[in-house]
């Protein structure tokens, strides 16, 4: 069935964040046809945006009653139960249903695991997160949850590598490097080395763009051209360090970063690479913390710098200091999922279980929002109905 004009208006308004006007348009649409699942699902999403959990639950439930295949309504319902709290049994049922309706939707399995975990069904939770990783081995939130589960059973020393692994799956880590590098325009299309202007700055800028496009061979060629003219170019060495880091060549990365820092001890991109290499090695947490403290002085406005520092502090058993660094990261970027999970971990070390659970719920909220998951499911569902 085609969507009514008020529903189309409501969708448009909702996508631009005009929640109040979108709700009014939804009610207009319901006046024309009150058994339209798309309107109820959209209304549930809008109620959730405004933190009206009971209304969101009511609208999503109506949508599902009208059409049990309305996947977007399951998402809104599950998120509403989770965020309202204290309704873990219903939450488990909803995420289970969504996993049935959309079996390849990795988030449904992650959320199901979190609902199981909140209800203290730990084995079922682990099973759900493993299922999520079977669907998408790079699912960062499932890995963060496994890290939290490991912390609860085995302590920080075994959980920390999992936190770091999850962090590396999270695209935000690379974003920090490119932020430090100052790449503003990643450009489009492949870069031809021969067509890059033969100047140091143009080559380094092009190498940065090539790294962002994960074209490590082109980046390496451009960096080599710069180093052939000046082997003491610290910025070129830092780019090389990052390229090696991304290719799992940690020692080459360390060598380039250390050389770069011997030429320019405050170079943020080199500090980043060296810190990440150190953080991967057991026994070098103190070194990593030292490097990330230096990086925080250079780029303290970026949340992830504090997250990286916090992880090193966890490795040093300085849980209170780690908690402080995580809280700073969350203050800078409330949507930083890695910081939310890290903060949850540090709360667990302090016996603050309810606060830890709350941080995990906030991470889920921001993660689903960042992915634009509701709109993906809604558009698929709404399109299929026409």
């Amino acid at each position, binding site marked *: 069935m085609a969507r009514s004009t008020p529903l189309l208006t409501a969708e448009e308004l909702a996508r631009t964040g005009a929640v109040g006007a979108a709700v009014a348009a939804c009610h207009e649409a319901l006046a024309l046809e009150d058994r339209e699942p798309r309107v109820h699902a959209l209304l549930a999403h809008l109620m959730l945006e405004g933190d009206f959990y009971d209304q969101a639950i009511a609208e999503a439930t109506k949508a599902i009653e009208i059409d049990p295949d309305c996947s977007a309504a399951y998402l809104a319902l599950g998120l509403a139960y989770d965020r309202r709290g204290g309704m873990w049994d219903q939450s488990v049922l909803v995420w289970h249903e969504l996993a049935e309706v959309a079996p390849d939707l990795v988030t449904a399995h992650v959320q199901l695991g979190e609902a199981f975990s909140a209800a203290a069904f730990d084995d079922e939770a682990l099973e759900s997160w493993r299922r999520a990783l079977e669907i998408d081995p790079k699912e960062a939130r499932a890995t963060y949850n496994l890290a939290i589960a490991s912390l609860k059973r085995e302590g920080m020393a075994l959980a920390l590598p999992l936190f770091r692994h999850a962090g590396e799956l999270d695209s935000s880590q690379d974003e920090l490097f490119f932020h430090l590098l100052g790449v503003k325009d990643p450009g489009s299309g492949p870069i031809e080395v021969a067509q890059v202007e033969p100047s140091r700055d143009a080559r380094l800028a092009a190498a940065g763009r090539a790294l962002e496009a994960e074209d490590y061979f082109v980046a390496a060629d451009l960096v080599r051209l710069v180093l052939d003219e000046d082997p003491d170019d610290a910025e070129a060495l830092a780019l090389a360090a990052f390229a090696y880091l991304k290719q799992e060549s940690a020692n080459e990365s360390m*060598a380039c970063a250390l050389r770069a820092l011997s030429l320019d001890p405050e170079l943020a991109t080199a500090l980043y690479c060296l810190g990440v290499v150190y953080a991967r090695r057991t026994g070098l947490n103190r070194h990593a913390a030292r490097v990330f403290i230096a990086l925080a002085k250079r780029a303290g406005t970026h949340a992830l710098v504090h997250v990286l520092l916090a992880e090193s502090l966890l490795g040093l058993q300085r849980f209170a200091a780690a908690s402080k660094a995580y809280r700073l990261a969350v203050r800078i970027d409330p949507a930083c999922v890695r910081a939310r999970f890290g903060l949850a971990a540090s709360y667990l070390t*302090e016996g603050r279980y309810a606060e830890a659970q709350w941080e995990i719920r906030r991470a889920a909220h921001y993660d689903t929002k960042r992915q634009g998951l509701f709109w993906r499911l809604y558009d698929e569902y709404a399109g299929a109905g026409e």
Partner: protein
Amino acid sequence: MSAEAAASLYRTFVDRDPAAAIQVVERARVAGIVQDQLFDALYAPAMGLLGRAWASGEIDEVAFTQASVVAEQIGSFVMPPAAKRDTGVTVVIGTIHRDGHSIGRAIIGATLKEAGYRVNDLGPDVRPADFLERVEETGARIVVVFAEMMRSARSVAGVRELLESSGHHDVVVLVSGGPFAADRALAREVGANGIIPGAEWALKLLARVTRDRAAAEGGV
């Protein structure tokens, strides 16, 4: 000495000679560089030299990779020790009878182990008699009892009573869990010597207990 040793180590990397690299490390150790300092004093400068050699074209990509493999092979010889040294202090931990909560115990137990304590974890649902038995078996003089419910928290008093009646007046009993964090007087009521609100506190409190005990014994 350090700069020369770092240059020698760098040379062994480029020569792809891990045995010679280990000898350089051993010589540095004999010359007085302690394990904690080997990475900073020797390995990191050698890696910096490797980076310089690659950047200047002195060594090519293949040689850089091969040298890095040698650097990897000797990495464990120069890394600072991951775990702290054994403190020799035994700590018995467990969650009190009729309480199945384990998260706090697992995290604090693992933290103490990593810090070098000899942790005897009795698990959840532990009767006072089992705490006593393990104290007598191991000679431990520190017991950490976990409880997350009011009723189970009150029953921690049984641990202290049993230790006292068996003549273990010198055993330090520490408690951990929500009821004790919420009501500090409860810890005193059950005969505990202190409260552990979290993992970092556990380290601080145990360090203090160990220090005080060593001072008292030294004084005697």
